[in-house]
């Protein structure tokens, strides 16, 4: 039996999670005149004081800005049991969520990604298509401030970008020439980085480590793009506020219990939005089990937590005799290739993968290996270090994962966060199809590196640290027996509970998901505003 905590004044919508999706939804609802309260367990980060202003910025990247919550262990982080998955979690806990820590590579899912079953006979089709999101993609691009160049033949047409693309720099420039030589696709990335002043944000000065925040505010994060605008429209954004459970009576969510400053309270609301990311959202639904919802909230289908998809990743690094100055310029959002993204049965796997260029890192990251093996210790250490440092450029092989019911998030029976809520436990196996895709990508990536003039090619066949994307754990669909939410993110079992994050993805595509997540968040929030207005 739950004890009733003190009750806050009711709002139209309470949003759990202040990351990429939650903040976009908060802005849209507040703009539409709804009263909104957003609860974020992390704190606000002042990027104007980013660690890249000081000598210990690489130490920050390995500690409080580490992508893995089990290593970072901020007080607001929840632990993750990752013993039964080869892919370790990467996320961030603060206002802005993962976009505090991200690479700002901003591709969109492609039209075929919404029709995987129809096109290729695997996975499931989405109940929405690219056209349903088109206008929301564009709106989100304007809010986030995206640079790039229109005309990419691998993607549907999109408006001229408001800012020119990032310069390639020496390493990616060699890769571009190699792709051209092979007759393969490449294009400058759409990046959530301001290359010219954008509103109150300064232009990028090519400093490199976007992952510790940007003191010029050139690299977008969801807090920069949306939090101020949401507040200006009347939204209340509370940080250090951890949601413990969603309350529901029958088929109606009534609000959330949360703890802030050690005090438990209840925030009642006409509607609840969950935006805690594909791992945190599934966890909270399962942790909100009640007599009316014994298997977890909105889990009559048994699908909550299932179909967890990442983007399995391999890394191909070219070492060059010439200096490539990989420390200059945003790390991971300058160039991509979708040459092998569409299905081709001759390749021995279904669906496809994307290449994403990755520059070199600073000295600590180089020594520790980044997404590669670390530089060996011992007599050859400095020679090996100098062979790589400033002389490398990499390609990720970012593979499409397909939904598998046994890849899932469950509640750990033992591990809890500091408020006693069960931690998520991840169970995941790499599918044979994805493995074959990675192997193809490794061979193709090595071909690119050789065509680019690399003197050596080093491969990491499987990047364990690449658990950046948590998708599919409460998927959308029309059938309440096989999906958790409908095409507008409404939980089938609890229609005033709306999901807006990557949990609702039906399939994963082979591209970084945040642009699509935010487009969905804006669309679902807008539809919720319509419903609240009409009621």
């Amino acid at each position, binding site marked *: 039996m739950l004890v009733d905590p003190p009750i806050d004044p009711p709002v139209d919508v309470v949003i759990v999670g202040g990351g990429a999706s939650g903040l976009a939804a908060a802005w849209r609802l507040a703009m539409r005149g709804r009263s909104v309260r957003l609860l974020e367990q992390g704190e606000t980060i002042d990027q104007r004081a980013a660690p890249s202003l000081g000598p210990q910025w690489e130490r920050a990247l390995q500690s409080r800005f580490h992508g893995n919550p089990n290593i970072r262990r901020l007080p607001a982080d929840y632990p993750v049991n990752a013993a039964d998955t080869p892919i370790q979690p990467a996320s961030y806990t603060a206002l802005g969520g993962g976009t505090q820590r991200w690479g700002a590579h901003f591709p969109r899912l492609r039209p*075929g990604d919404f029709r995987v079953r129809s096109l290729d006979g695997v996975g499931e089709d989405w109940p929405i298509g690219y056209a349903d999101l088109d206008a929301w993609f564009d709106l989100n691009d304007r809010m986030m401030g995206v640079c790039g160049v229109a005309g990419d*033949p691998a993607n549907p047409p999109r408006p001229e970008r408001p800012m020119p693309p*990032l310069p390639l720099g020496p390493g990616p420039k060699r890769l*571009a020439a190699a792709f051209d030589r092979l007759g393969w696709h490449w294009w400058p990335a759409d990046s959530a980085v301001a290359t010219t002043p954008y509103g109150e944000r300064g232009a990028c*000065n090519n400093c490199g480590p976007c992952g510790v925040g940007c003191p010029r505010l050139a690299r977008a994060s969801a807090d920069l793009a949306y939090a101020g605008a949401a507040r200006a429209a009347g939204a209340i954004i509370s940080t250090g506020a951890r949601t413990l459970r969603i309350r529901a009576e029958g088929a109606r969510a009534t609000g959330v219990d949360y703890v802030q400053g050690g005090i438990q309270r209840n925030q009642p609301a006409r509607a609840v939005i969950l935006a805690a990311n594909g791992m945190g959202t599934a966890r909270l639904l399962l942790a909100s089990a009640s007599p009316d919802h014994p298997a977890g909230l909105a889990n009559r289908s048994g699908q909550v937590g299932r179909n967890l998809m990442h983007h399995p990743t391999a890394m191909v690094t070219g070492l060059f005799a010439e200096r490539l100055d990989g*420390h200059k310029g945003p790390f991971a959002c300058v160039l991509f290739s979708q040459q092998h993204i*569409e299905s081709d049965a001759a390749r021995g796997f279904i669906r496809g993968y994307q290449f994403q260029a990755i520059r070199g890192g600073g000295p*600590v990251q*180089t020594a520790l290996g980044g997404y590669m093996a670390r530089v060996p210790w011992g007599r050859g250490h400095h020679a090996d270090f100098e062979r790589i440092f400033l002389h490398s450029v990499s390609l990720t092989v970012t593979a499409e994962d397909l939904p598998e019911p046994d890849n899932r998030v469950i509640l750990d029976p033992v591990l809890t966060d500091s408020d006693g809520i069960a931690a998520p436990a991840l169970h995941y196996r790499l599918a044979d199809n994805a493995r074959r895709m990675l192997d193809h990508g490794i061979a193709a990536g090595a071909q690119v590196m050789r065509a680019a003039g690399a003197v050596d090619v080093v491969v990491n066949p499987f990047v364990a640290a690449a658990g950046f994307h948590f998708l599919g754990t409460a998927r959308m669909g029309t059938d309440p027996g096989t999906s958790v939410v409908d095409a507008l993110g409404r939980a089938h079992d609890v229609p005033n509970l709306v999901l807006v994050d990557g949990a609702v993805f039906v399939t994963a595509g082979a591209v970084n998901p945040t642009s699509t997540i935010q487009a969905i968040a804006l669309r679902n929030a807008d539809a919720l505003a319509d419903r609240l207005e009409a009621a």
Partner: protein
Amino acid sequence: MTDRLAALLATLIPGDADWPSGAIVAPVVAADLAGVEAAVLAVLPADFAAGDEAAVHECEVALPAPFERVVTALYIAYYTDPQVRRVLEARTGYEARPPQPLGYELPPFDDALLDRQRLRAPFWRDPDKESA
């Protein structure tokens, strides 16, 4: 204990005419590890001396997880050390300064690089057309 740690670090990153050895950051590594290194040092031979790579290899095999933590702490401390950063600057030109506020020049994107790609016809699959 401190001498043994310094000897271990000097084996992991030996010094030469230019580079200082890992031993220069022993106090920082000890503070970062807060005791994790004790188990690693305990399995090294009693007469362990800097340069004994065979003994360190055995230790890496015997205690992979704590050993990895020692190496990680060393690499972080070493490559953020001001003296090491000055050597790095002298040898590679990588400036011994933080990335900000100076950053680097942001040259314009060279649009001519796209000449070849612009000739390519759209190749994304349109499910509406395929199913029509």
